């Protein structure tokens, strides 16, 4: 089961570039939350602050508080511990090319020393079923490499890999932007099914996608969060003029 995320006064910098400014936001548990906005508005930086991935860039810096459930992730824990609880799916599918499909899914567990063979089998199967990939790969689990799948399958494999460690939060950074329309709709269906079990934060360029999968939507512009509300309200009756301009396609 997922937990909520509470962000208070979050600021982020890349070098001297102030990419996130005073973000305050409550993301509800077990719902999908979409973040929209034009390129470079800080939405990707924002999700990378939730699992402390942005710190892997040595010039990045962050102030403020992010709470996942009861845990203050910048005060109470190390990045490694956070990332075991917060799964992430990236823009481009990045399965491990030298590993079989099975090993790709089990990678997170094996990494952390989980070696109960029987349970691993079950978790791999469950994760692949959850990511709607099981039927397509069940006969080649150990035969085929993660790289031999199509782009859309690879992305679902990456989702299975993230789900296998039973995360509380699933971050998706434009998970469908490198995929064709059919694969995209599969990923969207998947998000729709998964959101009852996980807290999902999805960054997207595609406003229709946000409208289709998310209950809540946040609109980012120039490193600030302009508006956060129910998806319905954002797309039908936004409070801020800039949100309206973006949604109606006047810029971005």
């Amino acid at each position: 089961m997922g937990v909520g995320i509470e962000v208070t006064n979050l600021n982020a910098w890349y070098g001297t570039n102030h990419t996130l400014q005073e973000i305050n936001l409550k993301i509800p548990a077990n719902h999908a939350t979409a973040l929209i906005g034009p390129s470079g508005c800080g939405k990707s930086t924002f999700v990378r602050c939730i699992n402390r991935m942005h710190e892997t860039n040595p010039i990045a810096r962050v102030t403020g508080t992010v709470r996942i459930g009861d845990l203050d992730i910048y005060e109470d824990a190390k990045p490694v511990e956070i990332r075991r609880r917060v799964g992430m799916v990236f823009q481009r599918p990045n399965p491990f090319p030298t590993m079989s499909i099975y090993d790709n899914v089990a990678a997170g567990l094996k990494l952390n020393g989980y070696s109960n063979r029987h349970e691993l089998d079950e978790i791999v199967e469950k994760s692949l079923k959850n990511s709607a990939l099981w039927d397509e790969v069940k006969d080649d689990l150990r035969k085929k490499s993660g790289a031999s799948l199509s782009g859309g399958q690879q992305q679902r494999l990456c989702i299975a890999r993230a789900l296998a460690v039973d995360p509380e939060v699933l971050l998706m950074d434009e998970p469908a932007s490198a995929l064709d329309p059919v694969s995209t709709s599969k990923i969207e269906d998947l998000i729709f099914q998964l959101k009852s079990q996980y807290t999902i934060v999805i960054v997207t360029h595609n406003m229709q996608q946000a409208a289709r999968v998310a209950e809540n939507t946040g609109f980012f512009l120039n490193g600030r969060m302009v508006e956060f509300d129910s998806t319905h309200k954002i797309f039908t009756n936004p409070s801020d003029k800039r949100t309206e301009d973006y949604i109606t396609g006047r810029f971005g």
Partner: protein
Amino acid sequence: MVIAQVPEIRIHQSQLLPAPGSPEEKRPAKAVSREISAIRAFLLSRGNSAMADRGFHGLMVLCALSIFGIVALIATELVLRSKMAWGQFGLDFFYKAYLDTYTGQPMYWDPVNGHFSALPFLYGTLVSSFLALLMAVPLAIGIAVFLTEMCPRWLRAPLAFTTELLAAIPSVIYGLWAVFVLVPLLREHVNPWLIKGLGWTGFFGDDNPTGLGFLAAGVILAIMILPIVSSLTREVMLAVPHSQREAVLALGATRWEMIRMGVLRNARIGIVGAVILGLGRALGETMAVTMVIGNSSEIHRSLLANGSTMASVIANQFAEASGDLHLSALMEIGLALFIVTIIVNAFARLLVWMVTRGAPSSTH
């Protein structure tokens, strides 16, 4: 309307172009009736330089083909000159021992009695190269991991530069350093310790007080192949896409786990290539090895014993070979070394290339 005009224009242009080889081709086209600028007139007055271009093309092809020519010439020469030894010993040359009529001991390389077998040199080459890899590979991978994954930015360039500078030092300098520094060090401090601790294995006999031998050759070879192995390993590690590192980190990996699973695992084929390329260097390295290996034509189990490699025996005996057969036998060793190093290097390059240019099975 516009679409309909396009073919018309094309026809018009093609009519203006003179037929290839026609007298018109050589004359600047002055069909244009309007007044021409000085620049235009100058450009029109130039020929099409077709001859010069063809000549240039031919010259460059010649330069490129000369590579094949050189390789073919070397191979032919080696084959021709080693014919005599090949005719006399055939395949025996690579493994057979001869009984010395005087002492009754097996002899492999006996210029006095005209018996030649390359086995001790094959053995010496393998042993010294293997020792070199054993020492150089872990160190080289460590250097590459540090440089690509954890080195502070300011230290990266100086460190990479120094590593690669090692490759520029002439072989004979390494040899001198080994003779004056490494060998005494081994003789005084390392070898006694090895003999005492590991003498029971039989690999560290105490019958050679000089400090010269396989171990000294292995150490100097390790230092010499370190730059190529570490710089190629670094190259293939850098070729691993950043997304692979992120994928592992996002699963909650520590830095070491990320390097192991996200980097080394993906780069392993290329690293094997780098190691094999290092092996290629070690097999053929001559000068420094000749100076420290002790140059004996016998086979000893002890790594502290004297020996020879294929390259070192050629360097050592070529100038004073005792006859045509001796010379021819040396040539045959040269031919064998030539073939082995070419195969080893080609294979290694292929592996490195597969990683840095995108392996056939890779998505990125």
